[in-house]
């Protein structure tokens, strides 16, 4: 198996936590992985992305070649579109639908949705709202990961284990909260 994942969002939204959970899950599944991420200047409210590659064969490049990503997982609807040139023809897009408007010329939502209409495989969910409804407003990124879970080629149980490992040191309560968020995200995606 081989899955190339683009993670996208705005600095501070938590794409690196998603990457960390998938990373733990991939290691537990004895898969090879490479994950390239952005540090430094771009983290200050700018657009950020991470290339995450998991495979049962050694991974060569840290970067995903153009037109070959299996899935774009994005915490922000405009940021998803920024990376479309990486997506392969039948690739999936899983995105949070709630805009992060920290620029004055943010496009109208309808214009963004028009672009989404051209894509064959997509899951568009307000993961922030789902997290709020769960009573855990800050777990939107984990909800999104749950929504993407059917498309990334790793057993759901391994992702749960990834959550446990990443949040272990923050206590059992936080672990349960995030497991809930992960499951809720998956459920919404399946029913979507």
């Amino acid at each position, binding site marked *: 198996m081989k899955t190339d994942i683009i993670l996208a969002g705005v600095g501070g939204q938590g794409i690196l936590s998603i990457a960390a959970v998938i990373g733990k899950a991939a290691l537990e599944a004895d898969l090879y*992985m490479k994950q390239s991420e952005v540090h430094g200047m771009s983290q200050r*409210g700018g657009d950020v992305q991470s290339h995450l590659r998991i495979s049962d064969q050694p991974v060569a*490049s840290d970067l995903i*070649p153009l037109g070959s990503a299996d899935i774009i997982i994005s915490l922000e609807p405009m940021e998803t*579109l920024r990376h479309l*040139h990486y997506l392969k023809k039948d690739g999936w897009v899983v995105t949070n639908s709630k805009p992060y408007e920290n620029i004055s010329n943010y496009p109208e939502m309808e214009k963004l949705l028009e672009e989404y209409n051209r894509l064959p495989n997509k899951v568009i969910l307000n993961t922030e709202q789902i997290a709020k409804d769960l009573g855990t407003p800050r777990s939107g990124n984990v909800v999104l990961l749950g929504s993407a879970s059917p498309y990334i080629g790793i057993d759901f149980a391994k992702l749960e284990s990834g959550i446990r490992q990443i949040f272990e040191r923050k206590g059992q309560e936080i672990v349960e909260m995030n497991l809930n968020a992960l499951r809720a995200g998956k459920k919404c995606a399946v029913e979507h």
Partner: protein
Amino acid sequence: MKKQLFLGDEAIAQAAIDAGLSGVYSYPGTPSTEITEYIQNSPTAQKRGIYSKWCSNEKTAVETALGMSYAGKRTLSCMKHVGLNVAADAFMNVAMSGINGGMIIVTADDPSMHSSQNEQDNRTYGNFAMLPIFEPSNQQEAYDMIYEGYDWSEKWGYPILFRITTRMAHSRAGVQTREPKVQNPIRLEKDAPMKYILLPVIARQRFKALLKKQKEFLQASETSKYNQLFGLSDSLDNENMNAAHKKCRLGIVACGIAFNYLRENYPDGFENPVLKISQYPLPRKQLFQLTEACDEILVLEDGYPVVEEQLKGYLGIGLKIHGRLDGTLPRDGELTPDSVRKALGMEVASYYQTPAVVESRPPALCAGCGHRDVYEALNEVLREYEGAKVFSDIGCYTLGALPPFRAIDSCIDMGASITMAKGAAEAGIFPSVAVIGDSTFTHSGMTGLLDCVNANANVLIIISDNETTGMTGGQESAATGRIHSICKGIGVSPEHLLEIVPLKKNYEEMKKIIRKEIEYQGVSVIVPCRECIQTHARKAKAKNKNN
């Protein structure tokens, strides 16, 4: 042992710890920062008493590392590529003296300038100093080459320049670690005590020693397991070659992580002879083998065309070399699997395009950041003066260049705000204002301030003090709480050395002070001081957790 998931930076740090490191000396700089931070947070490093506090700048870092090496212990110094410019004096001369305890200097280059003002390739520095350069192609090699590098450094008696780029520094992969080694005790050299005294008479001997050493460096490169020749049998040495053997059109040289991009494009094995290079000086023997067997050579390297130029020569007559110089690859920017694919003559295809509706989202100063208040007040006052210029520096406050502030006119190198303001004032610019952060000030601004004081330059210097090194993630700043006394010590007149808290409620007072100090004919220093809101929030969170 199970593999651990490490950033390239973290693999380097863990390898240095496992190799028996005794001290790491660095100044923060993207993409090198995480190496030193990893060691600072490592329980093993703490148990082993590894020194890991930040230094004031890269020059003090390399010199201090040399001091530890002098005592016989293993040492590491890490910096971003432009940091080596600051440390260049120490770097060039440690190549003359040589070292005792193993010494590795990591340069994290930033092709594509993700977070830098240039994309200089520091392999040039390695060649300039005539030192061996290691350039790993992946995280596991980064670990292994550091782990083994200390033995090499001690065997040679010279430091190693360890070159990575952003993509390696900030990419994670599974890494197998090795058995930790015992740290060196203090172990002074008995027979070469003069080598550190670079008086001309000794320096001349040391230079001859360095020249003589080149042969050993080259042999090590030619026998290094990190330099590998693919697609040509090893028995094929150049004496046995003749024209009849010339059968390949293209041979490929792939340096560091460029090798990964090459492999990405040949998942089922290479179609051409390939020489992977991760250790320099360039392995002559293997390069001869490759050039004898191939009509043309393609060079893949991240950064400048350093190897390409070496192979091609200035006149470019002789070998047919392709790469960044002849347009086969772009001359600037980091390599990607796609640019390499194109250079190999294969098609690059995107099915979708980024839609035009997507707007750029540049980074910005955080909401609530003290630099914002400084720029707002400063902008308002400077509107009263025609011809005012603001010379700024390297840090979060450089973002003051962007809207809504558009507050600065320059950002060149660490410390250049103060000295440029001085030069501009002397040329007749008024008001000539410098804006610099506290960490940049102690890194390279203090000597410039002394120049200003000595010349009684007509400048206003604003040291926007957020009590941290903010841009790189909030590392300790060298002189938190002591900026005022440093300025006073340098000789700034106490009446024109003023502090203020940059908050909205203090705007009128800030503006009044700025206006008054602009009008003063001489050196004024204003220190707006308020902690970085990021480090402040982090500390508050940690405190809550402990309660």
